[in-house]
């Protein structure tokens, strides 16, 4: 089988190249770089300094005490340092705080008004008010302090108050197919991103390589010899198979590295079901885009022109990635369900849904059947176009010409 000879050649030539090794290392570096800040943040939290203007005489001390008890760094230093201003003899503590803020002595200041019990309002001033984390902590802690104060004023037993204001710890469980298991928020968050991203890379990077390879053979005037030896059908299918196998090898390596890393962090990232689902959608998804890219590659002689033509198509793949946050907050949404039946984006949305919850079996079947049908049609058209134009040089074909060839 000549297509097998071509596939073997494409596979070995790609895997042997320096580019392949780079392509394995590069994403790992990217992942490393994107995890680094998070790891650094956890290890070495910045200490923040807040000034405090307490007009109540009771809330400020409780706030500082609660913070130093609750928010402590790994090296046992408190995460927050406080400069109380109210007790000091100064004309306007607010003016003093503003001046400290302007001189960057403090990161922000909190004003607790005397009537906080009644109004339930406090004020936070900072150079930037974008740090939700600090503000949420302040708001929660102050609410708690005010509630305790209120209870104490109603002569409740301090032990009872302690009991009433205890935090509730929310444990999470995943229920799939009747089975309940302890949930893993990190996995639930990272899983969909990881798999959709890997699928995106596998499909589009591999298809791009295929397109470049077709272009290279055209530019180097190799096509005539190849087509005369093997026929254009064998040439196209051999190239798709060989380069696809390289893409698959790449993915397998990524998955193994990801699993090893995940295991280190105690997370079970990759499951047998996950792998099967991935392959289930990768194969028709790749064939769909690969045949399309191969046909585009055969239409042009310059890479620039081909890239322009293909640019819009790559956006189709980015769309599902942009959709992940929405799908995560609305996993059962009808919109997400509908989108997963549009063949060119079916692989991405089905992988996404698979990792967000249980998808009924019939939905896998139907979406897969639609995808396979559409892929078959695309391959037929792309094959026809490839056979027609592969040996044409010179003028770039016009859209009506392309339509005529497809119809012929």
């Amino acid at each position, binding site marked *: 089988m000549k297509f097998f000879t071509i596939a073997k050649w494409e596979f070995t030539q790609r895997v042997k190249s320096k580019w392949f090794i780079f392509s394995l290392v590069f994403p790992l570096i990217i992942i490393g770089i994107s995890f680094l800040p998070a790891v650094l943040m956890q290890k070495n939290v910045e200490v923040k300094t807040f000034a405090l203007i307490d007009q109540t005489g009771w809330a400020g001390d409780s706030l500082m005490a609660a913070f130093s008890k609750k928010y402590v760094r790994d090296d046992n230093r408190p995460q927050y340092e406080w400069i109380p201003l109210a007790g000091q003899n100064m004309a306007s503590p607010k003016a003093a705080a503003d001046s400290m803020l302007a001189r960057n002595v403090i990161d922000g200041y909190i004003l607790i008004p005397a009537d906080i019990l009644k109004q339930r309002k406090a004020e936070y001033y900072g150079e930037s008010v974008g740090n939700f984390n600090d503000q949420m902590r302040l708001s929660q802690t102050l609410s708690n302090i005010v509630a305790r104060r209120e209870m104490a004023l109603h002569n409740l037993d301090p032990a009872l108050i302690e009991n009433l204001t205890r935090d509730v710890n929310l444990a999470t469980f995943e229920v799939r197919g009747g089975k309940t298991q302890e949930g893993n928020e990190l996995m639930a968050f990272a899983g969909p991103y990881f798999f959709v991203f890997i699928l995106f890379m596998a499909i589009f990077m591999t298809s791009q390589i295929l397109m470049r390879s077709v272009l290279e053979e055209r530019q*180097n*005037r190799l096509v*005539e010899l190849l087509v005369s030896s093997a026929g*254009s059908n064998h040439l196209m299918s051999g190239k798709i198979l060989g380069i696809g196998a390289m893409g698959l090898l790449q993915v397998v390596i990524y998955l193994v590295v990801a699993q090893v890393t995940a295991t280190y962090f105690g997370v079970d990232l990759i499951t047998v079901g996950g792998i099967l689902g991935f392959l289930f959608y990768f194969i028709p998804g790749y064939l769909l885009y690969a045949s399309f890219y191969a046909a585009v590659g055969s239409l042009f002689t310059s890479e620039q022109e081909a890239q322009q033509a293909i640019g819009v198509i790559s956006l189709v793949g980015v769309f599902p990635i942009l959709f992940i946050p929405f799908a995560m907050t609305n996993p059962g949404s009808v919109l997400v369900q509908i989108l997963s039946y549009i063949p060119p984006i079916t692989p991405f949305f089905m992988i996404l849904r698979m990792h967000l919850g249980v998808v009924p079996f019939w939905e896998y079947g139907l979406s897969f059947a639609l995808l396979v049908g559409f892929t078959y049609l695309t391959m037929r058209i792309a094959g026809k176009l490839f056979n027609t134009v592969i*040996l044409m040089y010179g003028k770039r074909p016009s859209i009506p010409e392309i339509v005529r060839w497809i119809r012929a």
Partner: protein
Amino acid sequence: MLEINQVTKDFDQVRAVNDLSFTVETGDIYGLLGPNGAGKTTMIRMIMQIIQPDQGRITLGGEPITVKTKDQIGYLPEERGLYQKMKVREVIGYFAALKNLDADVARKNADKYLQRFDLLERAEDKIEELSKGNQQKIQFVIAIIHEPRVLILDEPFSGLDPVNQVLVKEIIAELQQKETTILLSTHQMEQVEKLCKRICLINRGQAVLKGNLAEIKRNFGSRTVRIQSEASLEEVAKDEAFIRTEKENGALIGELRESILPHEYLKTLVNKVPIRKFEVVEPSLEQIFVEQVRGGGK
């Protein structure tokens, strides 16, 4: 024996090949000639089954060409190139594998022909490190690596220096001795004159001249005369007996009308100018080619 029988091919509104027939005998070197756009490459692509004829038959040894028999054809296309980043031996091996040649045989043959072309020590070099001429030689090696029954060469001499042209010609002659059937398409008429016994000249997809080269030249030559004289030949050149004339190194070369034979014309000429030399010449293939193509092919 490669037989082309009444083959026609249309592209959109253009008839690229029109009812073309010719036969390449086993062990023969056959010249397929024609100006640019005459339909030579289209004809060759149909033999190689890259495209299918609309009408007519192409057979090899009496059988239609199939995927299997195609492996017995070697092809050096005019549009040719190589994988620039790959090593010489790898590229040759790949194309040999595409012809279903056993890997060991391929290696042995590659070494043999690389040696012949003085390129054996460069077998592990990348293609891009070779000069254009050397790349041409690799392409030639690829065409003959599987020692094909039929060899189709489209402009095999273009890009080669005179030394390598001679080398390629020698190898073509050797292959002919091994009964390889060779179809040679080229613009270089002197190479055709040296190599081919039979030719087919096509113009606008049609055969305009076909057959034994020596006979064709004899037929054309019988009415072409070369006249040398001490006196001016200006008046002679205007003589109505000629269809056309040209000057060459002080001599006058003229093609006589069909009704006038050279020896009859000589009788009238001796009365007009003192003649130093009068001869009947065979035109070069190039002259025949130009005349046929300019004359619209008939």
